[in-house]
């Protein structure tokens, strides 16, 4: 059982003399093994929400708990895949994964085996000894995903991990991610501004307005999912509804 509960979360930044409220009374619970996407326009606070859940940013009020335990900063129970490329450039793909495993206290021999296993998981066994500089953007993010999964966090937090990739690579990455996720179930919070991506990947979609949650949508599409599903009427209909909800100017009355 791995759940993420966020209750009554407030967050504000200092801008000059004033404080700007970026998150207001956020309540969100991710159930065990649930894949939840958070979508919204840029600047709505979705990335901040993820950073707070990761423990990389503090907050003014509220509670963030993993399996009912309030978090104190970042930790290995939550793996993070960042939007920017965060492979350490002086380490090879394999060494990057081993780096995380060593930090998690695994022994040398174990590290090697687990790293190779996870490189295979993202179809990058051939690139094990390549430096990040020699990898394409998509390959770098695949290694980053492999690294975040390798030390078995309870929850995976992904902050627009495919945001910097071109459309073709992005599609491949989405398919790979669904495959990996369907094989190794895990609680995932996935921040994106791409609605199609959110519908394709998620069990549930959270639409954010400026600093608050507008609405959530369940995604009743069957699994395992393949690319064909993006053409079905159900898919397109849901995608439309989510998009409309993002665009709606009027706020829904808070519950």
């Amino acid at each position, binding site marked *: 059982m791995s759940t993420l509960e966020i209750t009554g979360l407030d967050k504000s930044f200092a801008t000059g003399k004033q404080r700007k409220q970026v998150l207001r009374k956020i309540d969100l619970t991710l159930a065990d093994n649930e894949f939840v996407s958070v979508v919204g326009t840029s600047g709505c606070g979705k990335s901040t929400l993820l950073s707070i859940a*990761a423990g990389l940013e503090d907050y003014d009020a509220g509670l963030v708990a993993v399996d009912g335990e309030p978090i104190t900063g*970042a930790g290995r129970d939550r793996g993070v895949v960042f939007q*920017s490329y*965060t492979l350490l450039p002086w380490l090879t793909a394999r060494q990057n994964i081993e780096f995380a495993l060593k930090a998690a206290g695994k022994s040398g021999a174990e590290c090697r085996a687990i790293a190779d296993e996870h490189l295979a998981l993202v179809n990058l066994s051939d690139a094990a000894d390549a430096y990040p500089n*020699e990898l394409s953007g998509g390959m770098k993010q695949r290694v980053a995903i492999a690294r975040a999964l390798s030390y078995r966090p309870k929850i995976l937090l992904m902050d627009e991990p495919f945001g910097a990739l071109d459309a073709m690579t992005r599609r491949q990455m989405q398919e790979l991610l669904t495959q990996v996720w369907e094989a190794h179930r895990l609680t995932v919070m996935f921040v994106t501004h791409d609605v199609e991506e959110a519908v394709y990947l998620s069990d549930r979609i959270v639409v954010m307005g400026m600093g608050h949650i507008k609405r959530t949508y369940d995604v009743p599409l069957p699994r395992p999912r393949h690319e064909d599903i993006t053409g079905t009427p159900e898919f397109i209909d849901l995608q439309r509804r989510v998009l409309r909800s993002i665009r709606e100017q009027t706020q829904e009355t808070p519950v």
Partner: protein
Amino acid sequence: MSSVQNAPARNTPSVSPPRKRGNLFVIGRQPGRRGYLCIAIGVFVILALVWWVATASGAIPKIFMPTPDAVWARLMKLAADGTLWADLQVSLYRISVAFLVSSAMSIVIGVLAGCYGFWKASVEPLVDFIRYMPVVAFVPLTILWSGTGDFQKFLIIWIGTFFQQVLMVMDAVKRVPGDFIGLGRTLGMPDRKILVKIVLPSAFPGIWDALRISLGWAWTWLVLAELVAATSGLGYRITVSQRFFQTDTIIAYILLLGVLGLVSDQAMRAAEKVLFRYNRRRP
């Protein structure tokens, strides 16, 4: 008008391609490796020729500017009687000690100031202030404090390089991507470990570059210190030669200093290629 003529003309294939190869007077166009070398060597050769013509023809009196072969002959003579090696040894010793001490100090302090707010607040304003004090003005003071021995040379080189280095090292540390540190945090690494395992290796190429640039300045401060008050060294030889109107020695030593600077710079660049192999693309 010319821009219209040079615009790619898709419909008229008879027009020759607009990009003329080999025209190096177009912003951003670079010569090949061979072309680059040829141009660079050409400039040196032309300058040497101008020098030779101006002096050998007698247009410039020898006492102001000796001929290139006279300078070469003088350098060979100084090398043969050992003067050159003695001067070189003393100067190399001084710059090595001062530069190593300065670099070690600036790396420790610069990395701390780049990472921790407390050290930044205590170091940065002070360094920024001292940095603008002219090094030359410290020469009389350092002589007053420590005489004219090696220690005074160390001090001048240190004052000249350390304060610049600290700021450059701080900058290299600040350029470490914030998400690298976030990664360390999410892996549960304590700050000290993040510093050693992530910040340092990540900032290392930038730090190395800072050291390479400041080494060039260190040569200047070395010669300055030796010109003003010394009893040995390359700078000392230059001042002494001025008293005896040995222009050939002065010029030989100035050129030698240029070569030394170039060699040390190239050595550090070569080390860069080995140290930061991971930045190179393998075939």
